[in-house]
């Protein structure tokens, strides 16, 4: 979802860019092995949520750029909705706890 959102916000991006972006947004709290990003990208691509092509990067090297497809956009929206719902529900539970304790 984070990958999809990143691509949704920033448009076409290469792998390093995505990794950096996720790091930045999360405030360096997510310190995963960056390499694990690539199998995930491949999987998303095979699912048809993103597509990719070679292109020149900012420093004129060859890099693979990933872009959200229409199906991916839809998927992102659906996942955001789901996430929102889940978060709402959990928030409500937490709120009840707070009430009873007080």
């Amino acid at each position, binding site marked *: 979802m984070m990958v999809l959102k990143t691509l949704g916000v920033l448009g076409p991006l290469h792998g*390093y860019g995505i990794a950096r972006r996720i790091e930045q947004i999360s405030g360096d709290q997510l310190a995963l*092995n*960056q390499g*694990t990003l*690539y199998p995930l990208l*491949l999987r998303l691509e*095979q699912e*048809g949520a993103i597509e990719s092509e070679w292109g020149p990067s900012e420093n004129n090297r*060859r890099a693979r750029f990933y872009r959200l497809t229409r199906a991916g956009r839809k998927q992102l929206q659906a996942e955001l909705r789901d996430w929102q719902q889940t978060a709402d529900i959990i928030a409500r539970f937490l709120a009840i706890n707070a009430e009873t304790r007080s």
Partner: protein
Amino acid sequence: MRLLKRSFARLRNLASRQSDDQRFLEEMEEHVSRQTEENVCSGMAPAEARRQAVLKFGAVEAIREQYHAEKSLPFVESIVQDVRYSLRILRKSWGFTSMAAISLALAIGANTTIFSVMKRLLLDRLEVPHAEQLRLLHWHGDKHTAVSNMWGITDNVAEGIAAASFSYPAFEQLRRDNHVLEDLFAFKNVGTMNATIDGNAQILQGELVSGNFFDQLQVQPQLGRLILPDDDRIGAPTVALISLELWQRAFGSSPAVVGRTIKVNMVPVTIIGVAPSGFTGAESVQSSPDLFLPLSSQPLVEPRGKNGSLLGASSPQIWWLNIMGRARDGVADISAQAALDTSLSAVVRSTLRLDANTTIPRLDVLDGSRGLFRSKQMFAKPLEVLMAVVGLVLLLACSNIASLLFARSMARQREVALRLALGAGRARVLRGVLTESFLLATLGGALGVALAFAGCRALPALLANPWDTSQFTMPLDWSVLAFTASVTLLSGLLFGTVPAWIATRSDGGACLKATGPGSTRRRKGLSGRMIVTFQIMLSTLLVAGALLFVGTLIQLAHVNPGFRTDHLVLFAIQQPELRYPAPKDLQLHRQIEERLRALPGVQSVTLSEVGYISDSMENTNFLPEGEPPNPDKDQSAWNNAVGSGFFHTMGIPIVAGRDFNENDTASAPKVGILSESLARKAFPGQNPIGKRFLAHFHPSEGKPGDLIEVVGISGDTRYWSLKQDPVGMFYQPYQQTPNLDFGATYEVRTSLSPASVAPSLRKAVQSIDPDLPLQEIRTQQGQIDASMQQERIIAALTASFGVLALVLASVGVYGVMAYSVAQRTSEIGIRMALGARPREVFTMVLREATWMALVGIACGIGATLLSTHLVTSLLYGLHPNDPRILATSALLLALIGLVASWVPARCAAAVEPMQALRHE
């Protein structure tokens, strides 16, 4: 949906083998170098920057594998790998592979063939809708039964006879009275008919059917229309329905066949339609009538009886029609039987002349779904034997595969343990073994299917006579094939996998150690040895059985039939009754006999009403003059009407009195020749020459019988079968019998082959009547061979299975001994190092194998003694527990055991002590 898309993409990647490793590496490189740049920017030394970047990226190999796994289907890929590996292994040990595959193939092929034949002969129902509803009418009576004249097959049952034949008046009456079954219909397979299609004379099989036959059987025509009640009226134009097979064979499947006219027994008949595919009439599943004609055509196309007609009230004596009907809902067979029995009694009383002691036949309602089901009486027993034999072969083949795979997986236990120790998953190791077993099973299975196809083609050919026109088709039965194939394949998989499973469960380290030096392995080899002992037991049983049947064949071949069987060419002539009503038929045969005698290359010619060793016979009453008729005593004798020169041509000696001669004409006093055994039985202690006897009397039909003078005594002969000891019989000149209405068999003594003499015989007969075909041209020896066909087939099949059993057993012994020797190499090395001589090692191995063989043979002989009495009825001239046969099979197996263990024993003896000890 997403999952589907992903799987599809993966499959595509797998199929295209597109390698994206390059892409990943490039992306990784790019990623790391950018991270490095960034690190350098933030002040790190270049080397350290690179190190940190790589650290941040993570474990490259793991990610790379993950990437690859994501990319395609690792499960499928590893299966492909397994298959490749297994193929390589199977190719490497091609001896093992071919042995196992051949075992499987034989088991599947032989079993499918025999099961298919069995199913066809004993289980398949008539090809009509709801065959299970069909009921066949049958009757049984004691020996004083009112029915005396029958055209059809009778069974001898306890206390009398049983048959499925009824007279036409009985059919009409039963049909009128019947309200317990659906409408009754009648049919009669009349056997061969002489037909002329487009000027070609051919011999076809015909079936007469009642007008409601097809309606009741619920069959739809392939073309044209079926026979309707309207066709079955006296005076209706004669029509015929032809079989699909004849339509294809003689008319090239032309739709214009409807309306064509052919000649059947010289009567013009119009074809009205073609029967559907698979329809075999109502008589049996195996018969294949070419022509279906209405009953009303019988007086024209198949005249029999007093004035040619078996229909109407004119001939109630002759019982010939088969009757069937469908079961009616809610009426039990037993109540249907009671009701129909009442009307049968009524019709017998009203149509037959009854004496004081004649009895009324009782009616039975039987299952008619398989027609008359003669095949049960004919083939049930031999097929059971063959089934048992192929069952044993199946068992043998399965155990062979088991022992081969078992020995193999034992030998590979170390490999398995090693793989486990190196970290292979158990499932993965098992899957590898399973793949190998599966491949082997598939290979064997494919061969087996091919063999089954060939077998189903070949067996009907074995069952048919070369001169018999009726076709017996034997389609491969897929359900049977599926069954045998799955049984065999499953056993292969099971025996391949179980040892592997055990191996994967065992403690890897212990296994690696234990199989290392391997000093004593007696216990571990036990199951392999037990399998081989079991195989030797089965083989002993199979070999003994095969020897019994082969012995029967040899005994039969040495039977002296009482006449010379060499250089005799036989053929039959069935004169049409319309053209040759009695006594014109006698004149015709006289003419033919004389014309043939003049042919070059023909030494002598004769004819007889009944041909020899052909399962036909004639029996009549026989009363020495002065003896009163006594219904409680057997006062009958077998008889035959023959031409002059019969005894000379057949080489049957005249031991007293004279032969028939030219003076024994129709008007001369009636004379007869008795066989020695009949003479002894009828005139004990007297000279029979000049005595007279009474024969052929049927008071109920107003026949007083003939008084015949004995003029000679002939040697005894076998009559209808080689298996039947000579019977008491008498001969008459055919000129002195009323007619030859079943035709005659000609016996021609010639030094020429049947093929070279046949054209001149045919020309001679056709110079007398161009429409008379020569039927069933064969030699007497060929006739005898054909009569032993069942014995020959059983002997051939059991013998080949016996040889197969020997081969399988020897492979089994060899495999187990070779394996055992290989395992004990170091033990043998120690023995030799301690002073054992090669000779002693050699005998030690042989002794071990011999023990195994002896135990197996002993069990096998025991099994043989227990089971051979089951086949007594199929043997001739041999006791089922003939000691010679038991000894021979035991010896053969012992020899096989010895020979098969010879090579492993030699290998053991040739072991170099030092090498053996250093080996591990």
